[in-house]
């Protein structure tokens, strides 16, 4: 008999003052304005979860259903997650790492970014809460995923994006026929507008009023890395940061596995990576502050361009708890990182991947990450969505007429090799 999952959620709890709420669509504490998160009944979960039960589960992120905040069975995003963990020998040789792995969410299903994880959870939960319309504020990848999943789930959909996104990310919304709202402003303006709309409409805004549930989907990246390494937590994980939520949830996921006895020890250090043109969190880290100064983003890493990061404080806290570090890279270094990953491992990541690889390189150089450490870089989105960033750097095809002679001449090849 399938284990019952209805007793796993206790409710929502304020991360600041501890006030508790029923598990409804709320994201801010009405007393102290702190963010709410899902509170689980870990004793009940511990009694039924094991490496074996997980390994026997579906080949998707839903194998970790016992640690995801839905009350019934999953109904949206049944095939998301369980992306490859690549042993990146070539890139490791290049950077001076003996045991480097790439967690490759550029091939997540169906919209080629880690957002397919959070949206699967958010939309399943939104349906459980009785919503028929979903919406989001997005830098692109989230909108693509919400639009695709809403189409498949036959839900009404509104996605709100900044006006200056990459062409593929805009097209990757329109094709699913949601209402695509392009806001004249940056992501922080979009987010503020969505908060106001969320107060007016009975819509499930996945990263506003559904955020406590939505954000939990990110934990599955940590779970998968551990399982794919053979139930071992890595020594180092490098994580791109926009709102800071992903890093916070990776740290939470590792700690949950530890608490539930699914891993023996936990000495992982989590490191945060930002683009220099939008680095409020890593700047605070470098200055030893636990609060950040919001910035106006100016970077090619548009998917990370959040100037006022909602989980910035918790990302700083998680990094400090784990003993990790943070750093940032320039737009040039981002492009270099994208090209390096593509040319060593055959993985074409979007700009955020360039940020992760660029910062990984810096941390190795600084001696923060050692050659013998088992190191994982999270690559969260696909390069075909941010072609504008590398177009100037990749060169042009070599054009010839359909002539054998011209081909051989152009490439300086002898006529007879065989």
């Amino acid at each position, binding site marked *: 008999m399938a284990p019952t999952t209805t007793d796993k959620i206790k409710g929502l709890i304020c991360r600041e003052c501890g006030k508790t709420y029923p*598990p409804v*669509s*709320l994201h*801010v504490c009405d007393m*102290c304005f702190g*963010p709410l998160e899902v509170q689980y009944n870990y004793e009940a979960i511990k009694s039924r979860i094991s490496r074996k039960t997980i390994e026997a589960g579906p080949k998707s992120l839903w194998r970790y259903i016992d640690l995801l905040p839905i009350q019934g069975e999953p109904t949206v995003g049944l095939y998301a997650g369980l992306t490859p963990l690549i042993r990146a020998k070539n890139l490791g040789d290049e950077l001076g790492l003996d045991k480097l792995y790439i967690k490759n969410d550029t091939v997540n299903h169906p919209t080629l970014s880690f957002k397919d994880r959070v949206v699967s959870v958010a939309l399943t939960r939104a349906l459980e809460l009785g*919503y028929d319309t979903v919406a989001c504020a997005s830098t692109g990848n989230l909108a693509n995923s919400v639009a695709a999943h809403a189409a498949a789930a036959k839900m009404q959909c509104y996605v709100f994006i900044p006006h200056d996104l990459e062409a593929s990310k805009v097209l990757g919304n329109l094709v699913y026929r949601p209402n695509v709202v392009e806001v004249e402003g940056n992501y922080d303006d979009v*987010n*503020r507008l969505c908060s106001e709309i969320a107060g007016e409409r009975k819509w499930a*805004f996945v990263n506003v009023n559904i955020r406590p549930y939505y954000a939990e989907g990110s934990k599955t990246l940590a779970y998968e890395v551990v399982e794919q390494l053979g139930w071992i937590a890595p020594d180092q994980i490098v994580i791109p940061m926009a709102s800071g939520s992903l890093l916070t949830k990776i740290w939470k996921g590792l700690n949950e596995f530890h608490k539930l006895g699914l891993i023996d020890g936990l000495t992982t250090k989590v490191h945060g990576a930002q683009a220099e043109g939008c680095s409020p969190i890593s700047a605070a880290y470098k200055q030893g502050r636990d609060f950040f100064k919001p910035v106006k983003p100016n970077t090619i890493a548009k998917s990370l361009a959040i100037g006022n990061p909602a989980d910035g404080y918790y990302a700083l806290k998680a990094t400090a708890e784990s003993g990790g570090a943070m750093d940032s890279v320039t737009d040039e270094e981002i492009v270099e990182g994208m090209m390096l990953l593509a040319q060593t491992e055959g993985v074409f990541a979007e700009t955020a991947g360039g940020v992760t690889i660029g910062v990984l390189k810096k941390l190795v150089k600084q001696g923060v990450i050692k050659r013998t450490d088992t190191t994982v870089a999270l690559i969260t989105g696909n390069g075909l969505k941010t072609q504008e960033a590398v177009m100037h750097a990749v060169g042009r095809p070599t054009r010839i007429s359909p002539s054998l002679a011209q081909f051989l001449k152009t490439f300086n090849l002898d006529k007879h090799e065989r």
Partner: protein
Amino acid sequence: MVKVRIPTPLRPLTGGKNEVEATASDIQSMIESLNGQFPGLKDRVCDDKGEIRRFVNIYLNEEDIRFLQGKDTPLKDGDEISIVPAIAGGAHPHERSA
């Protein structure tokens, strides 16, 4: 006298007013003055140790007071202060069932 802008979630305490006045020499005394006029306001803005809550931002003439002198930041006549929840709020629970 300084002007203080009040966010929506705190307006039930100020009788619905979105802007109020206070006589204060620094942020700390401004909060005390507001609490005298609108009892309960301090509990919402400060924790039980009297520190400004982490997810409450206070701006003096557009600058976050954390980058000034925190609650000791001095005020002068005509200053404009805004109290703003760090995470934009405004959502309500609408669902039919939990």
